[in-house]
């Protein structure tokens, strides 16, 4: 379950199209598995909504670029999932370990688990799922994430053990397996998975109709205990305001992503609840560090110091966000380092003077309505920078062509990214030579820290390495990251169990 930015559709456009998304589909719950047996026997129908992000051609294959959220979260399980604490917990795998070099990972699988069609879950299904993701014909967004696995050489020494050899060492390899493309499908199912949705999850498909109402019913033999409701409907509504209206008209029970404006409306009705959950989505001002004036770190630091981050959270996000310190690892990540960067106009001026911009600095900031926060952020930045003698000219560009003509071309522009784990985001967006290295920052020490971290199996030491990398990036990188946005979800008060990140649909109940 994800709670990201304003709209999942926008979010997935950024992340899904890139073919790299980390925690995106992470689904889970803080409760240990054993607790699920104590919940009341499921009854009632939970009515969810989906955004029709693929306009009706959604399919149930988790590996597909047009996979059907949130339905796939109801039908399948992964090997591992995220807990509310941001750490990995078992799902279809019960244990995992690596060799000393972190180049080979062995997973022990859960026994006595059955697919919806009655077949037993074994190691063959895991290997098939992975090879399906890596199949170029599938064009799976997961292929780039799991590229590190030597897919041809994955083996099953017995029915309940899988060994993943890696092309390079990766101490956090299990984290990659929470990607939504790694929902386990039965061996050899082929294209039938698109319409049958046979998994091991808490619900089984009864009717597939992305543009109407898709229904799933409780899997009473679910390995983690009976689901909390008897049936789930997933209604397709493309427009965000229409989703809010459907919620208020009692046509659906839960909206996963809503906007601050809708929140004000929903709050007026006492039988609805708003859940404000932190997320790792981050919009950013990108400075191209290989071009003047941003090739001087004093200028970059001055540009960072002028930002009043609290004010931005209050005004741009109406308070629904967390202050960030110019690195992209979000507060919910296990390796998060808090970097405090209070506004300091005097210091910014001093740095600019040192960098021989004492008379002031003129820059053009490119922005677009492509992300809902970009334009308000830009306008606030202009005002804040003016006090330090930085004259910002705002250049608004159409959303069409923005990623092609402006982003990674102009020296100073806006960009935005979805939530990813520390390792993923640091490597994909900031490492020298990475295709999405939008700041063009080249720092051998930073790259070295990331390499060391991937090889470091000791968790505390690994954390220290990732944190050093974050500090270095915050102090010298070309990204001005003022905040992380919160995810806002809304539900009818009778819906219980949707109040944490990574909750599990199997544990959601209806009460009263």
């Amino acid at each position, binding site marked *: 379950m994800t709670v990201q930015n304003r709209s999942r559709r926008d979010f997935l456009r950024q992340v899904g199209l890139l073919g790299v998304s980390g925690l995106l589909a992470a689904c889970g719950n803080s409760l240990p598995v054993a607790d699920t047996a104590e919940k009341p026997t499921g009854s009632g129908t939970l009515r969810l909504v989906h955004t029709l992000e693929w306009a009706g051609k959604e399919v149930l294959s988790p590996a597909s670029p047009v996979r059907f959220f949130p339905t796939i979260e109801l039908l399948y399980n992964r090997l591992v999932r995220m807990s509310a604490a941001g750490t990995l917990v078992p799902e279809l795998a019960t244990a995992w370990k690596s060799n000393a070099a972190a180049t080979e990972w062995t997973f022990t699988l859960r026994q006595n688990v059955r697919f919806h069609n009655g077949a037993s879950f074994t190691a063959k299904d895991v290997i098939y799922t992975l090879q399906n993701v890596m199949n170029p014909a599938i064009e799976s967004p997961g292929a780039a994430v799991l590229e590190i696995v030597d897919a041809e050489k994955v083996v099953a020494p017995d029915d309940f053990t899988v060994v993943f050899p890696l092309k390079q060492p990766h101490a956090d390899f299990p984290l990659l397996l929470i990607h939504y493309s790694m929902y386990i499908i039965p061996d050899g199912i082929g294209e039938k998975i698109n319409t049958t949705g046979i998994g091991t999850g808490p619900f089984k498909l009864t009717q597939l109709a992305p543009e109407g109402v898709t229904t799933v019913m409780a899997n009473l033999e679910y390995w983690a205990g009976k689901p909390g409701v008897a049936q789930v409907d997933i209604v397709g509504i493309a427009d965000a305001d229409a*989703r809010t209206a459907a919620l208020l008209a009692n046509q659906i029970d839960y909206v996963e992503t809503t906007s601050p404006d809708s929140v004000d409306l929903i709050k007026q009705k006492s039988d609805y609840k708003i859940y404000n959950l932190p997320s790792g989505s981050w919009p950013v001002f990108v400075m191209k560090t290989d071009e003047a004036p941003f090739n001087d770190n004093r200028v970059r630091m001055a540009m960072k110091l002028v930002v009043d981050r609290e004010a931005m959270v209050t005004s741009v996000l109406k308070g629904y966000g967390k202050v960030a310190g110019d690195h992209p690892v979000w507060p919910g990540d296990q390796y998060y380092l808090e970097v405090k960067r209070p506004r300091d106009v005097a210091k910014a001026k001093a740095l600019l003077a040192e960098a021989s911009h004492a008379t002031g600095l003129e820059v053009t900031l490119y922005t677009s309505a492509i992300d809902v926060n970009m334009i308000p952020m830009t306008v606030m930045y202009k005002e804040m920078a003016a006090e330090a003698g930085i004259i910002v000219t705002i250049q608004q560009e159409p959303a069409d062509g923005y990623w092609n003509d402006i982003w990674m071309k102009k020296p100073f522009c806006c960009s935005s990214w979805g939530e990813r784990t520390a390792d993923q985001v640091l490597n994909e967006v900031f490492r020298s030579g990475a295709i999405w290295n939008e700041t063009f920052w080249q720092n051998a020490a930073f790259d070295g820290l990331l390499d060391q971290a991937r090889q470091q199996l000791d968790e505390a030491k690994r954390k220290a390495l990732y944190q050093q990398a974050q500090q270095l990036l915050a102090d010298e990188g070309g990204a001005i990251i003022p905040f992380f946005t919160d995810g806002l979800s809304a539900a009818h008060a009778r819906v219980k169990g949707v109040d944490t990140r990574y909750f599990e649909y199997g544990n959601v109940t209806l009460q009263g």
Partner: protein
Amino acid sequence: MVWYVVQRCIGALITLFIVAAVIFAATELLPGDVATALLGRDATPKRLAQVRAQLRLDRPVSERYWAWFGGFVQGDWGYSLARPNQAIIPLVSERLLNTLWLALIAASVGIPIAIMLGVIAGLYRDHVPDVVISVIALVGMSLPEFVIGSLLMLVFGVMWAILPAITIVPPNASFGQLLPSMILPACTLMIVMVAYILRMVRSSMIDVLQSEYVQMAYLKGMSRQLVIWRYAIPTALLPSINAIALTVAWLIGGVVVVETVFNFPGIGRLMTAAVGDRDLPLVQALGLVGAAFYIGVNLVADIATLWLTPRLRTQYW
């Protein structure tokens, strides 16, 4: 008369051809091209080349225009970009049917109401019925569709909860399944439509009542009833035919907003989705369908006016 109809039909085809050229040109004017618009941030040189080849963007503009328009006329509308392997014709026709049902309900209920109210307002010019009707009509005209839609939704869907606020049936649902969900969007369209038509009927009614031949009829001692029903109303309705046509044509455009608000599975919602997905072949096809409808309705109105107006009929006979 026949010649006139033929003339008008040829004119309509020429208009359609020009509109098609404009629609086609508009997509050419996008920043970058269709391929960059479609791929967005994912535009690696390899994928760009693939998409360009697939869309034949490497060919000259004129060649592509003829291929596209020729295909359109022959019933080959091509394939959707964002919805792989989905031909545009079934995609559009399924939803067009839903939209036409919606428009038909709105028009068949709305037009008689509009005419009736317009006649009453015209007859009681500046008196209480006229003032009440005109004020309501002005309010209806000034409020955008999405405000009216949201208000109706709030009252009937949320507060009283007697009608579904949002449509949750798929595009291929039967008429019976769709009907409950059609009431609120149809009412929204109707309110806007009624306001326009009744204003037009009212003013032409007033014109006719002041005309010399109506005065003459009164002077000859004809009863008020007879004058109104026999001479005033038929004459007053003639100029309204074009207003009605314009309004019905507007319906097809107006549904874009209304269908989005109500999540109604018609061509309006498809258009919104297609624009969102940068699915340009689909946007072009829908644009052309809208234009064809607009031109067609106006053509029918022109012919009907001619048919119902003796003066014009004899002139062109």
